[in-house]
């Protein structure tokens, strides 16, 4: 099914010339002799290049699913917009999709790439390779070529006018197919190279033209009708390069929305939505990549629900503002990334001590320090778990995929309100700034909300001990329950106290309320353990049973690796932790029980989860870790390779 390598052929030039799209009378300009297009710098079939109009090698259409494609280019030349349109087109074609992006630190310019993987099943992982790469140009390509692994089966589409072909592309063995995007765009479409690219790559990817046009119309609607019209012309032109003259009937073009209850949503949007579902109505935050677009999504929507967002002067202010709001009875969230979370550490301690519920979203990026702001890493687990001063029990959660951002933030918000405790939710750039076509995320399990003080005999004791450790919380405005929330250690009434007995009592209370809570089954997503292989658990020793443990955004690659391993006859279970603290040791031990081998998989340098699980005494001594730092994502193939290496290694 892999198409043969097609040597450099300028068939597309002829293809565009043969379409009816665009201005008439321009044909002279694309005569070979008059062509301004330079020849590609790699081996060129000069014979063919000299007479492109006479030869039309059809571009191979890639029908395999899932298919991973990428549109790359210099930042600002429209690769990311092309990706958005292709994702919308995938949705209109009735498929699921996952769109990730890579960008440099520049405001605009630099390098950018949109990577889209799509297929008939939901996707939570960008896979092992790029099957189809369209380069708008080759400038700065080296900066992200590592993120775009090509195989010999891959197909590369590039404009010969786009500059020197990077050696890394040539070395990949991928088939290269020149596409005169710029010329086509210049002649027919007012220079919208990226829109021509959408048509070309959409066609090669086997997407219907109607879906592409619909996707463009939806994505570009905010820019106005003129832009949509121009884009439509470009996409048709690009599509025609592949399929010859492209025509769609009006009926087709209007393509009624697929009757699928699916969503097109980014991880940051899903996080914001989850927070709203959980009841968050106040947000304060300081801008930081890659959390800003979570905030920008919330800013205009909170007022529609009677809420409010404040841009704070810094992260120190942000976390204290959300504590203030929550003290006032309005559930609150702040969002940040690693450096900001560091600044919030003191505030988190205050929320713990004063038992004020707040949600802190940490959309992780490469660290430490300013690190790699635009790219992903799961390296803030240590900070989230241990970064607070004092003995400060709190919640740490991590969403497992884009849609799960909605579920996890919803759940985190409900948990904080129920338990009067701060929660750190570890999303990351790979989730936050990626978009998916996915099934609508389910709502989090209903929980009793914040326990409110009720009039009673005697004075109000804000921090009184109780069976579950949760004490009723008065809200300013209610008569009869006035109290001062305290960051100093205090007694049951909130009066500052440095007495050992009070300290112990309050430490116990704050710990107890977290560990006594029944978190239900959503502490982890367990795949292939109880449902698929009940015997593995019952017997406690399933020969060859492999247990993969992961957390957060790495789950996608792990699940895909597990599926492939199962196809090869492996017995595999995957435990993806959504609730990292308090760790559900007993349930986790039970889920691991019987595994013949355990591999922890995560995206950081030294295995932060692995070391945490060891410290919590849930892992067998034979457990191993596959950890590598960002910004490169985990790929299913490397997980499989690590599993095989584990198999080869002698196990005690």
């Amino acid at each position: 099914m892999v198409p043969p390598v097609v040597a450099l052929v300028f068939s597309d030039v002829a293809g565009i010339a043969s379409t009816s799209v665009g201005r008439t009378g321009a044909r002279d300009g694309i005569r070979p002799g008059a062509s301004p297009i330079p020849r590609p710098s790699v081996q060129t079939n000069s014979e063919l290049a000299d007479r492109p109009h006479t030869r039309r090698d059809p571009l191979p259409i890639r029908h395999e699913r899932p298919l991973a494609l990428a549109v790359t280019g210099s930042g600002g030349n429209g690769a990311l917009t092309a990706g958005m349109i292709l994702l919308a087109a995938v949705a209109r074609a009735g498929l699921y999709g996952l769109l990730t992006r890579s960008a440099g630190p520049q405001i605009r310019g630099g390098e950018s790439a949109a990577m889209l993987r799509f297929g008939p099943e939901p996707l939570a992982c960008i896979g092992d390779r790029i099957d189809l790469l369209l380069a708008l140009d080759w400038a700065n390509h080296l900066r992200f070529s590592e993120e775009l692994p090509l195989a010999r089966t891959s197909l590369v589409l590039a404009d010969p006018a786009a500059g020197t072909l990077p050696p890394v592309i040539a070395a990949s063995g991928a088939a290269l197919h020149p596409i005169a995007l710029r010329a086509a765009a210049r002649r027919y479409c007012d220079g919208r190279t990226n829109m021509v690219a959408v048509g070309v790559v959409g066609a090669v990817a086997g997407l219907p033209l109607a879906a592409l046009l619909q996707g463009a119309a939806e994505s570009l609607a905010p820019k106005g009708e003129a832009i949509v019209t121009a884009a439509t012309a470009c996409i048709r032109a690009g599509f025609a390069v592949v399929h010859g003259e492209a025509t769609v009937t009006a009926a087709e073009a209007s393509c009624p929305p697929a009757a699928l209850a699916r969503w097109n949503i980014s991880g940051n949007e899903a996080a914001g939505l989850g927070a709203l579902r959980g009841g968050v109505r106040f947000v304060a935050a300081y801008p930081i990549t890659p959390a800003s677009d979570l905030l920008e999504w919330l800013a205009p929507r909170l007022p529609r629900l009677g809420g409010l967002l404040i841009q704070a002067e810094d992260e120190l202010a942000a976390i204290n503002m959300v504590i203030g709001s929550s003290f006032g009875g309005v559930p609150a969230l702040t969002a940040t990334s690693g450096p900001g979370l560091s600044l919030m550490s003191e505030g988190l301690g205050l929320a713990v001590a004063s038992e004020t519920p707040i949600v802190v979203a940490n959309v992780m990026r490469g660290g430490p320090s300013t690190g790699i702001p635009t790219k992903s890493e799961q390296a803030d687990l240590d900070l989230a778990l241990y970064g607070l001063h004092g003995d400060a029990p709190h919640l740490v959660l991590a969403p497992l995929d884009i849609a799960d951002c909605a579920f996890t933030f919803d759940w985190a918000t409900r948990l904080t309100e129920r338990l009067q405790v701060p929660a750190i939710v570890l999303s990351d750039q790979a989730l936050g700034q990626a978009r998916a076509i996915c099934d609508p995320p389910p709502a989090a399990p209903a929980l009793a909300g914040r326990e409110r003080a009720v009039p009673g005999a005697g004075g109000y004791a804000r921090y009184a001990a109780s069976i579950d450790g949760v004490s009723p919380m008065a809200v300013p405005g209610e008569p009869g329950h006035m109290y001062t929330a305290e960051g100093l250690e205090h007694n049951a009434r909130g009066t500052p106290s440095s007495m050992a007995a009070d300290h112990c009592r309050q430490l116990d209370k704050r710990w107890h309320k977290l560990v006594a809570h029944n978190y239900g089954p959503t502490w982890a997503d367990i795949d292939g353990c109880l449902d698929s292989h009940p015997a593995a658990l019952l017997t406690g020793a399933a020969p060859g049973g492999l247990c993969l443990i992961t957390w957060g955004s790495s789950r996608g690659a792990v699940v895909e690796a597990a599926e492939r391993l199962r196809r090869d006859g492996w017995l595999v279970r995957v435990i993806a932790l959504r609730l990292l603290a308090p760790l559900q040791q007993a349930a986790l031990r039970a889920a691991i029980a019987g595994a013949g081998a355990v591999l922890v998989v995560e995206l950081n340098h030294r295995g932060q989860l692995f070391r945490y699980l060891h410290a919590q005494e849930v892992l067998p001594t034979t457990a191993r870790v596959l950890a590598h730092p960002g910004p490169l994502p985990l790929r299913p193939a490397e997980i499989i390779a690590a599993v095989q290496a584990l198999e080869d290694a002698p196990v005690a």
Partner: protein
Amino acid sequence: MDSTAIPSLGARDYKSDLKPVWCPGCGHFAVLSALTRTLAFLALPKHRIAVISGIGCSSRLPAYLDCYGFHGLHGRALPLATGLKAARPDLTVIVTGGDGDGFSIGGNHFLHACRRNLDLTYIVMDNQVYGMTKGQASPTTRPDWRRSRLTPEGTGMQRFKPAAIALAAGAGFIARGFAGDPNGLSHLLAQAIEYPGFAFVQVLSPCQTFRPESREWKTRVHPCAGAPARDPATAAQLMLTDDGMALGLLYAQVLPPFESQPRLEGDDLAAIEAEFAL
């Protein structure tokens, strides 16, 4: 004289039964007393008042009141109060603290609270020293004050000018009171609480323990001539040329307050979710 109804609450009703940790003779006692008398005079319901503070001697004040309070982090009282007031515009939110808390560790928040102009009253009890950490120089301490072992040669730094900085940062209500004049202070606090925006009241509040010489402030304070200024240029002239001891409402101008969002009835979440549906 207002001969209408007798207020249902006296100043004492606003006090909690907690005993202050302050040293005998501390100026903060008078500030507490002035504040409770002001709250009683304004007849504010206790449960609708929230007093927010950071860390320091003066930041202990909320617990001495029978209102809602939050004794938070050093320097972070203003943002905490900002979140509370933005989320709950129906409450009267008062922020108390000291010069170190407000002007040093919390200096950035001071600037931005002035800019934001949320309806808060910010009372800074300025004793020109860190009391709780036992006598270090604060931003308002003279550069040549040598009695701290931490800065035995003095700080060598210019004094922070709270009023002028508040003005430059955009505050619309700037006043200076004195613990030795609690009635005058009450008047300033009443105006500050009723001011529809961010009201900053610097209170010269002597520290008997670490700055015993500050008892002499009572011979140095004087009413501010020409106050209150109504335009920022006049106010700047006044604040930059005064000796830091001029009392009164220094500057008052009604500025557009920070707009809290209207709290709408009804839940629009389904409409927001619909944005994602294909």
